[in-house]
Structure formats: structure tokens, C-alpha cells
């Protein structure tokens, strides 16, 4: 067997992060998600000449959300640049760079614009290593803003992680917090395999937290318990983590303690952490904003139906988008995207049904 054995890092380190380069962490700054991601790209460009950052409007303008702000000025047009308007081309071009030894970090302007690139993604990004038995690999990162909550035009609020997670050979990471995001993005860039890195638009500027300077890595493949509780396990990622935290606060005031799990990495999935939680609470609610049918939350529920069936004291309920396109109709968006109220209704259901 030529592949190495996977050891869930969370079990080795009790879920804490690995600081690969502690010396450099001389200080911290208070950053929002955009700034933390910008910082991560800056560090990656700084320390590895193989890293290139590109995409539509990424060079001159720094991206429509400014995640690449100032990077072209600092690292040069050769390393941070605009591409023509063609997403299949962007991903395909990046694959070529990676095959030849570089570390491409592509930005797709919105996650919905990954769709034109899906052939490159499904047919190549996830298959190249397997196809060539490890002779050719694609250490590429594809970043894209995703999800709703800040009223965007049609398509711009899509959450396609469930499609990406079905593609064997690609990893999927969705951070929910600036400090984690920086360490995860650096780990994604460092990863020997292709990684999709989806960034919740809703979180881009919503909160600021302390973020260490310099290089540090949060390993991929580790879920985090972000709030302890014993009544029900809420399983979420990305933009839904704050929704679950809000629900947990409300429930707590009524004396019900919800445990909140932030998956962070969807593939490879650290299901052990979910399982341990559900074994403890006996109940689970899975929260995601993509349409319910076929979404990634189905995978979590399905695994619970297999591995936790005798631990469950109630149904596994999914709180998700409805089986309709994400609405571009401003007045009803909030009825589509799961909120704390709907999560709490589901909690009630799993506790009483």
C-alpha cells in the first residue's frame, strides 16, 4: 500500500490546532474573515515561491470581496493576476500549473460560477492522482464565496458543497471563523491534494477575532466541538455555525444545553467527533443552507442512521434550504435560509417526537 495511513488529528491532539511554526507567532491582530484570508494568502505567497494567486478581478482589484487586496502590488503581477472570464479555463489552467509543480490558488468569483468548471473538477481535479497512481498530483486550492444571508443577485447565494463533496479525490473545507480560516487556508495550500475552500459571504465582515500573525496551520479533517451541551447535537459548518450558536444561546436560557459541532472539513470527514457527540446526547439536528434533498447534511444523517442507530433517542432532523432554488427575491430570503428559530423548532421536535 503506497498511500499513508490517515490518523484523525483531532484524536491525536484532542481537537486543538497544530501550530507548525510557533516562533513566527509573535503577535496577534483583530481581523475579520476577509482580512484573515488576505493574511493567509500573503503568508503563503511570502514563504513559497510556487504559490500563485489568480482569478477574475483578483489582480488589479484584489477580488470582488477584496480577499486578495494589495497582494498584486506586494508580490507582483507574475504571482497575483487577473484571468480572462472563463471558469473552466481557470480551473483547467490551474491544473496545468499544478501538474508542472506549482501551487495554484484560484479564486472563483462566486461559488455558483464553479458550475462551468465542474467538468474540469469532476473529470480531472479529483482523478489525476488516482489515474496515475500518484505519479501526477494536483496540489491546488480553489477558493469561492458561497451562501446567503446578505441579499445577493440570483445564483450568488448558492451552496454547492454537496456537489463537491461527491467528487472523490477533492477535499472540501468551509471555515466559520477568521482565526480558523487563516490556519485552514494555509493548510489547504500546503496540502498535497486539491482543496475547495468555501467562504461564507455572510461571515466575511460580520465579526473580528484575534488572529496570530505569520504562518500557522490548522489541520484539515478535524471537526470541532464549538459549544458543549448534553441535550442535542447540532451539526453545521460555515455560515450555519453562527446560526446554531445563536440557537444554543436561546436554548440555554431555557435550561437546554445544545452541543454545537463545526465540521470545518467536509471531506475528509471527521465523523468520529460527530459520533462521539451524538452518542452522548442521543439526538441530532443537521443544519445547512443548500436545498435539503441530496445536500451534504444527508450524508451526516445517513451515517448516523448507520453508526448511531442504537444511540439515537429521537429522529435525526435536517434544517436546510427548501427544495427550491435559493431565492433572489429579497423580501423572502430570510424564509429560505435556516435561522435560529427553525433550528430551535427542530430541537423541540427531536426532543419530543
Amino acid at each position: 500500500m503506497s498511500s499513508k495511513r490517515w490518523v484523525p488529528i483531532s484524536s491525536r491532539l484532542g481537537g486543538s490546532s497544530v501550530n507548525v511554526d510557533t516562533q513566527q507567532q509573535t503577535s496577534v491582530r483583530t481581523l475579520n474573515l476577509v482580512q484573515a484570508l488576505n493574511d493567509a494568502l500573503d503568508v503563503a505567497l511570502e514563504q513559497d515561491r510556487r504559490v500563485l494567486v489568480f482569478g477574475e478581478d483578483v489582480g488589479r482589484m484584489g477580488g470582488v470581496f477584496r480577499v486578495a487586496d494589495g497582494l498584486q502590488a506586494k508580490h507582483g503581477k507574475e504571482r497575483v493576476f487577473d484571468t480572462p472570464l472563463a471558469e473552466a479555463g481557470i480551473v483547467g489552467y490551474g491544473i496545468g500549473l499544478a501538474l508542472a509543480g506549482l501551487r495554484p490558488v484560484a479564486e472563483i468569483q462566486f461559488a455558483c460560477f464553479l458550475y462551468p468548471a465542474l467538468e474540469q473538477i469532476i473529470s480531472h481535479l479529483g482523478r489525476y492522482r488516482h489515474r496515475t497512481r500518484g505519479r501526477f498530483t494536483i496540489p491546488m486550492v480553489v477558493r469561492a464565496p458561497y451562501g446567503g444571508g446578505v441579499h445577493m443577485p440570483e445564483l450568488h447565494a448558492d451552496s454547492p458543497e454537496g456537489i463537491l463533496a461527491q467528487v472523490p479525490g477533492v477535499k472540501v473545507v468551509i471555515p466559520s471563523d477568521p482565526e480558523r480560516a487563516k490556519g485552514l487556508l494555509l493548510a489547504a495550500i500546503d496540502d498535497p491534494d486539491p482543496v475547495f475552500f468555501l467562504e461564507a459571504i455572510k461571515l466575511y465582515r460580520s465579526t473580528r477575532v484575534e488572529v496570530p500573525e505569520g504562518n500557522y496551520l490548522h489541520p484539515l479533517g478535524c471537526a470541532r466541538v464549538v459549544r458543549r451541551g448534553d441535550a442535542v447535537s447540532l451539526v453545521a459548518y460555515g455560515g450555519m455555525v453562527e446560526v446554531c450558536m445563536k440557537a444554543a444561546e436561546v436554548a440555554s436560557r431555557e435550561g437546554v444545553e445544545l452541543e454545537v459541532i463545526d465540521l470545518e472539513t467536509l471531506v475528509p470527514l471527521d465523523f468520529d467527533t460527530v459520533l462521539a457527540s451524538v452518542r452522548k446526547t442521543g439526538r441530532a439536528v443537521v443544519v445547512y443552507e443548500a436545498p435539503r434533498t441530496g445536500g451534504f447534511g444527508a450524508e451526516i444523517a445517513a451515517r448516523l442512521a448507520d453508526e448511531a442507530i442504537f444511540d439515537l433517542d429521537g429522529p435525526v432532523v435536517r434544517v436546510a434550504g427548501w427544495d427550491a432554488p435559493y431565492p433572489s427575491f429579497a423580501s423572502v430570503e430570510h424564509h429560505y435560509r435556516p435561522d435560529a428559530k427553525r433550528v430551535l423548532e427542530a430541537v423541540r421536535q427531536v426532543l419530543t417526537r
Partner: protein
Amino acid sequence: MIQFLGGDGRILGDLPLSHEELVRGYRALQRVRVFDERAVSLQRQGRLGVYAPYTGQEAAQVGPALALGEGDWLVPSYRETGAALIRGLPTYQALLYWRADPAGWCYPDGLRIVPFYIPIATQLPHAVGIASAGSYLGEDWVALTFVGDGGSSEGDFHEALNFAAVWGTPTVFVVQNNGWAISVPTESQMKNTCIADRAAGYGVPGVTVDGNDLVAMWVVAREAVERARAGGGPTLIEAMTYRLAPHTTSDDPSRYRADEEVERWRQRDPIERLRRVLDDLGLWDAEQDAEFLRELRVEFDEAVRRADKAPELEPQELVEHVFETMGPDQLEAWGVLRER
């Protein structure tokens, strides 16, 4: 580059439009300009969502729109509110679209305009299919579609042109080469910045037109539409124009381009250029202009009032129209949403 008006609006030779047409064209330009200006200011007041202005590109849109006949189809990108207005999209609906209200997508029956397209260049194969359906059904309609310079880089552009060419479908492709794709200038988008040059590779006529010259845009589009209708197949029209405004109301162009460039293009304003022609020909005077603008503003204000009266969407309407008949999942959601 095909041109009938000089940069300053002087007439370069014979005009292939009647006086009546010149006035009609001018009025159309003013009408869409007023919409654009007012929409931008509504947006600033927070009474519109994000809006994609087309300031400076009016002629490139209005010319082709005027070239279409009764039964023809318009297949726009998000940039062509102007073209849609001229083709009959009610003003209040255009506003509702940009207010992200579903009524903005519910065009009156029989209006052969498909809704504005968000995913770049995806409308192009649709225009080929619509055109082809007409030929199959023995209808003589033409489908005219718009795309940007940036959009010409997408694979869909290529596939659609090739389909249209090999089957000779009655499709007219209008590229608004407005110099920018958000922050990316045409020179970073492609090497040969003459997009009409691509037509030869497909074996279809390609023509570069002064996109700020309404006469040229109208006449060239009319020719292309007529050729298509007569079975002569598709045409690729490249309109050389410029986006004077931000990409959308969320965009800040000072991050990526110099004011001087914008100023240079402002001198080639399509409305000013045509006004000079009307002036020279004595077809339109300042008084008429003022009166017309006043009318347009009244009309616009009425449209705003009408848009304001659009009924609120009920939450359960979120899951309607997913299928003609709700599936069990929509039905379940419908029940939940009705209680909200």
C-alpha cells in the same frame, strides 16, 4: 469600424435612416438614459437593490432593439435593461427586477424577451435554440442576443457561435465591447481585441461598429436581422462602446481605472452625438427636449409608484413554480412556510 456619425456628432456622408427614424432613435436613447439615471439614484436612496447601469452604452442597446420586428426575440444579459425597455418591458417591471421582486421576472404574455441573465454567456446557446425553433416551426422570427467583451471568453460563446454557424440559425450576436469586464480591461481579456475577427473562424459575417453611434448600430443590426430572417444565418456584431458608470452600484471603478479614460469616452456620448445631428437637421430643439425629458420623468415616477404597489410575496411562494405540480418536498415546505 462602421460609423455614420463623427465622434462629435457630425454626419459622415449619407444617413441611411429617415428623419422620423432619427427622432425615434433619439427619443429611445433619452428614454433609456432617464431610466438609467433614475434607477441609479433610486438605488442610492436604498429603494432598489444592486443595479447594473449602462450609461454610455445606450446606442449599442437601443440600435439592435429598434432593429427587431414584432415577432423577434431578445435574449439579453444583465446589462441590457435599456434594450428590454425599448422592446416593451414595462418600466415598473424593470424596476421590480432590480428590486429583486419576483414580479420583475413575470413579463407580460407574448413579450418575446427572456429574463436578464446572470451567469455570463449562458444566454447565447439559448438564443440559438430559440432561433432554430422558429425555423423549425416555420415562423420567421429572429433571436438577437447580447454579451459583453468579458463574456466572449466563455466557452458558451464559442459553442453557440459554432452551432449557429453550422446550422445557419437566424441568430444575431451583439457583443458590447465596453472596454471592461468589471476591473479587467479588454487587453487583459484577449490578445486580439477585435472580437468581430472571430466570426471568420466560424464562417459567419462579423462586423465592428461604433457602438456609440445609434445610426450605425441600428442600420447594421437591421441588416443582420434581415439577413437572418431571409435564411442568411447568423451575424456577429461587435459594438465598440464604453461603460461610463461603475460595473454595478456595488462597484468602485476608481480602484482599477483612470478618470481620464472615462472623460475621453464621455466626449463620445451617444446621445450628445445624435442630438447634434438632429440639431443640424433641425429635427429637434431644446424646448422639445426639455418637454420630452419632463414627460419621461413623470412616466418614470409613475412606474416607481406602480412598482411600490407590487404585492408582498408570501413565504410559501418560495417553493412554488419549482415544478408545474408541487412534488412532496415542495408541498411539505409549502405547509411549513404558510404558517410563518
